[in-house]
């Protein structure tokens, strides 16, 4: 997997100074092992343990013992955990395409020659990136709740009643909207910078051939930014699997979001509310492995070289 250039040029250098790259990496490696690798192994170990009560008295004493794969069996047979994946799928089907679609649309509009107010729009669309997820969810929560929502104010004034943002099927859209709002700007910038990298001559050639601005966008620009779309798609997908903050912040405001609405919420509940760290660790391991598998599959099916070489 080595790049061709350094291999050819730097071979003798490499032998002479073999320690240098390790020294450059050493601070990062130490931190990587300490805060990623070791916790991961610890989670693996924890997932094979369990707390069991034994001893005298009504409350007994809790002891940690080895329980084998019990926690994994409990996780994969848990209705809460599995249903969470179902809801996650619905949420993802809304959030991922819309985040990418809107990001692409805005990037193309920014890049188009026929639009105005570009700098303002680009900045405005990028602003939500600076708003922490917890705060964004709170803000949208206020905008959703019938009594405090300006949207419902308008519909009520029109005699249409309030909008049930946080119940029924619109709930999925409402939760996804928070992620879309926070994510469009960043993805738009990635795609937009990719668009700016397309040589002007290619676009001009298409225009001279009589292509409209729309045709240039669809036939010339979009195919050339597919790599950027794959990357943003991957981020959106990972983000989807890790959805946690938005539904958690909205949860106290509605009866429609359970504490196990998405898998990470189940993990959090098991770890902190139910004090079953081993079960949470097992579910985390499953989720991490799942994320890895889905990501690899996505990259394989779209573009093998996307992550391989720089």
């Amino acid at each position, binding site marked *: 997997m080595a790049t061709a250039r350094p291999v050819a040029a730097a071979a003798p250098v490499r032998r002479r100074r073999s320690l240098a790259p390790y020294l450059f990496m050493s601070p990062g490696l130490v931190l990587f092992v300490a805060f990623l690798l070791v916790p991961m192994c610890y989670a693996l170990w924890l997932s094979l343990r369990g707390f069991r009560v034994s001893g005298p008295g009504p409350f007994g004493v809790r002891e940690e013992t080895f329980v084998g794969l019990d926690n994994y069996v409990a996780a994969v047979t848990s209705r809460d955990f599995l249903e969470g994946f179902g809801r996650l799928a619905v949420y993802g089907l809304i959030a991922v395409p819309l985040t990418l679609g809107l990001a692409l649309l805005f990037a193309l509009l920014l890049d188009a020659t026929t639009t105005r107010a570009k700098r303002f729009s680009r900045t405005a669309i990028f602003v939500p990136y600076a708003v922490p997820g917890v705060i964004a969810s709170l803000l949208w929560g206020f*905008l959703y709740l019938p009594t405090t929502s300006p949207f419902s104010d308008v519909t009520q004034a029109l005699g249409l009643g309030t909008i049930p943002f946080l119940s029924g099927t619109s709930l999925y859209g409402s939760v996804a909207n928070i992620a879309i709002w926070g994510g469009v700007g960043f993805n738009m910038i990635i795609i937009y*910078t*990719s668009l700016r990298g397309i040589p002007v001559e290619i676009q001009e050639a298409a225009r001279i051939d009589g292509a409209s601005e729309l045709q240039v966008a669809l036939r010339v620009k979009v195919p050339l930014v597919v*790599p950027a779309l794959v990357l943003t798609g991957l981020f959106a997908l990972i983000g989807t699997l890790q959805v946690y903050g938005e539904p958690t912040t909205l949860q106290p405001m509605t009866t429609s979001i359970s504490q196990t609405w998405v898998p990470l919420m189940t993990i959090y509940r098991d770890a902190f509310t139910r004090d079953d760290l081993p079960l949470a660790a097992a579910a985390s391991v499953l989720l991490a492995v799942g994320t890895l598998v889905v990501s690899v599959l996505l990259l394989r099916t779209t573009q093998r070289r996307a992550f391989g070489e720089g």
Partner: protein
Amino acid sequence: MAALDTATTPAPAPVRGRPHPRRPRAKVLPTAVLLLGALYCLVPVAWVLVASTKSRGELFSTFTFAPGTGLLENLRDLFAYGDGAFPLWAANSLVFAGVGAVLSTLVSTAFGYALAKYDFPGRNAIFYAVLGGVLLPGITLAIPQYLLMTKIGLAGTYWSVLLPSIISPFGIYLSRVYAGAAVPDETMEAARIDGAGEWRTFTAIGLPMLLPGMVTVFMLQFVGIWNNFLLPFVMLSDERHYPLTVGLYTLLAKGSGEPALYSLAIVGAAVSIVPLIALLLLLQRFWRVDLVSGGLKG
């Protein structure tokens, strides 16, 4: 990026005998769509700014976009809350994000530079381990990280949030991509022939070339740490160590005997996002977000 906007105006080209206008006529629909997108992104921000001017009574009783009369009082309450807890949280956030992002940038840059510019045993293994790290959900790490931190006696301290924030697999990945593209092997080789050691080659030749990439990694990490909630929430228990996200969350989630402090949380949210937006706008011309997708141009 701001500079790029005006830099590449296409040269006028005659089309079928008709003079092509230097700048095509604006079309209403695309511009309207773009402005609609801008509006969509600004509405909640506008809402929080308006809501922060409302007194506690007005918050729940007046039209949502009507400005209130309580801004000064809210600000006073906010800064007085918990013996000046809010300014402390802001300072903590600044320390976590500022120090964390600087250290993270340095660590990632050196790491990425080594991965991109050297060939050594274990290089691919390390690179794929880093890529795997990008995909790990934060929450799966937060719990074991907390347990391990307590074992070494760091839980609840600044270090427990700062140290894990420094390691950023994504930052390393970006640095590797950027170093691969920005530092030519020939330049490094020339420095070596001139007698520069590897460290000198890195600091004198590599770092200046890597600067734009470093600014980007810094910004991404700064925003990432600033917005992080779960790690400090799990690690910290002393209110005086909280960053803004956790502090504002606790304002909203006080226990049963205490009412939700919505108006404080709202004005706090408004005050905390304004500087970050300003920082982003200020720095956005220096960022090179294209390097995020740069690795994919193949």
